[in-house]
């Protein structure tokens, strides 16, 4: 039996920020519905890898392939549309729009995709419910706890039904119990909807929520080893 083709893959990525190399030939594959943890020490290139895979940053060399399409060959307009419809992104903090309520934050990607306002708000409410923060739907991010805001951010990342969610240290700013609630909610939602998750973390307890782990060391994927 042939090996299944990954939904999203990076091959030989290099990326240099100024004179500092962040990636030096990183290759990785994410399969449909898989939760993959990318771990590694600070400065190992984890976030740069995520940015390249999510089409936010273009690599200097190498290629990123999503569902048979090479991202570097797509025009910016098409790439932007792909990010909006197929990908969801959650960062460590600060990604919700502070002036909007939780409900409007979650409804926003749907409105941008052309859903009518009533429909977008209804669906946003359902996703807030799934993440246990429906009761906070009228609060602005600054009025919510860190864990509540992060669950609202997850709802926003998943509300459009993306095939891949990129999560960059999603629990990095949370205490351990809030982090656990966020990870449990993310894993349950991803499993139910068949969404693949690329999870960047330096925390082994967070990485243990994933199906599989790859380690980055000095900008390349370590074969199997201890993060040094």
């Amino acid at each position: 039996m042939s090996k299944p083709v990954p939904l999203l893959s990076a091959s030989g990525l290099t990326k240099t920020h100024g004179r500092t190399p962040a990636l030096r030939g990183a290759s990785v594959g994410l399969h449909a519905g898989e939760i993959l943890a990318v771990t590694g020490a600070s400065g190992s290139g984890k976030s740069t890898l995520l940015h390249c895979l999510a089409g936010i940053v273009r690599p200097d060399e190498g290629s990123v392939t999503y569902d048979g399409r090479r991202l570097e060959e797509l025009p910016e307009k098409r790439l932007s549309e792909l990010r909006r419809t197929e990908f969801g992104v959650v960062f460590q903090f600060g990604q919700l729009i502070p002036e909007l309520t939780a409900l409007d934050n979650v409804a926003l990607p749907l409105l941008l995709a052309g859903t009518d306002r009533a429909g977008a708000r209804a669906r946003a409410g359902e996703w807030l419910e799934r993440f246990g923060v429906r009761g906070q739907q009228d609060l602005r991010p600054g009025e919510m706890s860190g864990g509540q805001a992060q669950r609202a951010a997850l709802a926003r990342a998943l509300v459009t039904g993306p095939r891949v969610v990129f999560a960059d240290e999603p629990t990095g700013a949370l205490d351990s119990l809030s982090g656990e609630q966020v990870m449990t909610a993310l894993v349950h939602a991803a499993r139910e909807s068949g969404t693949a998750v690329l999870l960047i973390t330096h925390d082994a307890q967070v990485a243990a929520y994933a199906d599989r782990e790859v380690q980055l060391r000095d900008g390349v994927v370590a074969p199997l080893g201890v993060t040094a």
Partner: protein
Amino acid sequence: MLGMSTRHILLGLLASGPSHGYDLKRRHDDRFPQARPLAYGQVYTTLQRLVRDGLAEVQGTDSDGGPERTMYRATDDGTHELSRWAAEIAPPAPFVANEIFAKVVVAILSGGDPAAYLSAQRAAHMERMRELTAVKAAKAADLATVLSADYALNHLDADLRWMSTTAARLTTLTAEVDAV
């Protein structure tokens, strides 16, 4: 008496009311789901010792339609001993005695490959952490299961952090030796 104690755990289970050996074993395994299950023989031997030491006493027998079973209850001395033990501070890691630590030291002493060992051990630790996380994150997980999984996960995580630091030290050490 210091450390993990079957005597005190059985006294703790008797604190909620008289019980017999079979029931105590079953409740122990429910309350400590990731622990090694208690053997029946160990339960009965420990109950007899608690009676001998005046910490528990036989309350009679209960058949409940099945075989006759001896019921035990804690004495006042037993209740007092349980309170004393529960409040007693456990010594924070008095000795460093761990197989992983020993294997790394032995590998260094004998010219082995500690980095390769650490790498393989890390993979095994992560696999166990994924299993425990799945147990804990299951929607049906009860509090006892979550607490025991948390305990195991935090200890495995501490091992991992030590392994990462050790691997980094070995890398630095090798680089320094090579530079001489």
